[in-house]
């Protein structure tokens, strides 16, 4: 029904301060998942890259030094870089119901629990995208 509206997920922007995790994200999404990915090491970096890259999905690590995930999200919104067509997800080791409620208040329903399985990460993002698109 909505097939004509559905663009497949191609461009993903990730913000993650841990260099090892950034590298494995790139491996998981670029090499395994075949996606175009920009992995930023900080919120500032993401703010600088986002408008040119125009990601369909932004994945934010929650706990980061300096600007954390929620703060980065806020700044991205302020900057007008989060469109109606932009899907958002948090990545975190904290997935208690209270935390999830807090994320929901920030408008984030998609949470990718850490640790993630590098072989399944791309599938997880595709699933988030397909639900977002519906």
């Amino acid at each position, binding site marked *: 029904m909505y097939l004509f509206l559905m663009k497949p997920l191609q461009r993903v922007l990730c913000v993650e301060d841990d260099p090892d995790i950034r590298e494995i994200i790139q491996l998981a999404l670029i090499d395994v998942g075949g996606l175009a990915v920009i992995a930023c090491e900080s919120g500032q970096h993401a703010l600088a890259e986002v408008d040119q890259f125009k990601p369909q999905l932004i994945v934010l690590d929650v706990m980061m030094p300096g600007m954390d995930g929620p703060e980065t999200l806020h700044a991205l919104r302020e900057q007008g870089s989060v469109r109606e067509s932009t899907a958002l997800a948090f990545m975190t080791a904290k997935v208690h119901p209270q935390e999830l409620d807090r994320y929901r208040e920030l408008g984030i329903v998609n949470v990718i629990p850490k640790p993630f399985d590098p072989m399944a990460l791309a599938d*997880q993002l595709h699933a988030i995208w397909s639900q977002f698109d519906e």
Partner: protein
Amino acid sequence: MLSGHNSMNESTPTQAVKSRLTALRAAYQQRLDGELVSLQAHVEALTVRPDSIDALQFMHKALHKLAGSAGTFGFEQLGRRAKELEHFVAEALNAEQSVLEPLKLETWVNQLKEGLLADVQRGSAVSIEVVPTSLREEQPSIWLLERDPMLADYIAQQLRSFGFSVEHLNDAQELSQPHAHSPDLLLVDHRASESPELNENPERFWRERLQPFQCPIIFTGAEESFSARLHAVRSGGRGYFAKPLDVPQLASHVARVLKSQDAIPERVLIVEDDAEMAQFCQLVLERAGMQVQVLHHPKELIQTVSDFNPELVLMDLWLPEATGAEMVALLTQVERWAHLPVVYLSAETNPELRTQAMVMGGDAFLEKPVDPVLLVSLCRSRVGRLRELEHAMSRDGLTGLMKHASIKEALEAEWEYVRRHPRYFSVVMLDIDHFKAVNDSYGHAVGDLVIASVGTLLRQHFRTTDKLGRYGGEEFALVLPDCTANKAVSLVDKLREAFSAIKFMGDGKVFSCTLSAGVVDNEGFPNDSAEALIERADQALYRAKHSGRNHVCQAIDSGG
């Protein structure tokens, strides 16, 4: 709908991806060494100044990072332990005062190192390169001593379907040759040797050949007779199976024999205000392989008992705020713990006081100073009896799995546990396909054997910590802690394949069966109740049935 990205499709990593993963993992492991050193430094700082907020915050951040990243690189044990410790630090930070002291800070880094070691030994490099075939650490190894090569092939293949690893030996003389591993069980055809000694005195022959093996031994042979069974016993055997072998029955027997050997550690709670005494008992019991928790303040008894779920309480008769006997009386008021064995520790020699304590509940007295040998054997035998009792009450007779009510209770318990100590778990509903047709064509006895085989197979394929239950006639329910739906799907799929490879005999015909399953985890549906998770797994099972059976489906969010 979106196609091509079904999470059930396992992507097979290319060689290039594999080698990069391995390299990343190695780099991460190097980094771990440094992080453990800096953690150790902060632990030491905290031991000197337990109120150092800086050190606490550093530990919190570092443990949080480990908890979130280690699993991704295949260091799952380490990640899990980091998560537990992170939880303690977070509580300490919230409490704004040190509550870390009773948690033995100085052991933390060692705990992490142990986790790391376990991960390295388990070769978890493999687990990020390919989907693990089983959650079990290793498959039990059976040596099959059988002269007929075709029969040996058949038995080996069938036993492998049940999750055993099988090594075939042709002749008894191969037993004395050097082997890389020792077997967990020997399956011996009692004619399997060319040696003339076998004819002269078979019993002595086997006793001598099998003497170096500590593991259980089962004999097989052509004749079904009392004397054949007696021979087997006299030759040092644990059992005898007549040919043609009924492999599902044999597998079930083998599984039972092996399971009785690797028991889960006993959980003992020590309630004792004398720290030295408590530590002594803890040490003795832990050395004997038990899991021990110590409680110094009786006030926390109920909370600790419901968290730790001990199988025995070792209770000081004289506690600061209430007597041990009073504490026991309190426990027996709660139905769930009414049968919890209690052993008193006391120097009390006054027979009246002792009698009084026993009347209020409690099973035995151990006098101080405590004899370590007696302590271990008393605890072990009490827990053993409790387990037998619980087993008899809660186990399904045909499969040895939990009964309907018990598996539902186990799910509730896991769900409650996860609310306090977040972790993933999966729920699986599983059903034998076209089971009614089996009963109709071959009779109920054969049908029962098929059901029992699923029981055997489940116990072989899953860990002792997994909860496995027979939910109804041919329906099974599983609760798998520390296991995401993706992992569960691949495990159950392996089980599905193994089951379809098993050959059953009925009415003179050979046939095989298939099964379908639905899988869900709490990660995908964090707001679901335990009941709702079962419902979702059931719906996924329903989809599996409707997509042609012999399938494993993962629950999808239909509510949006």
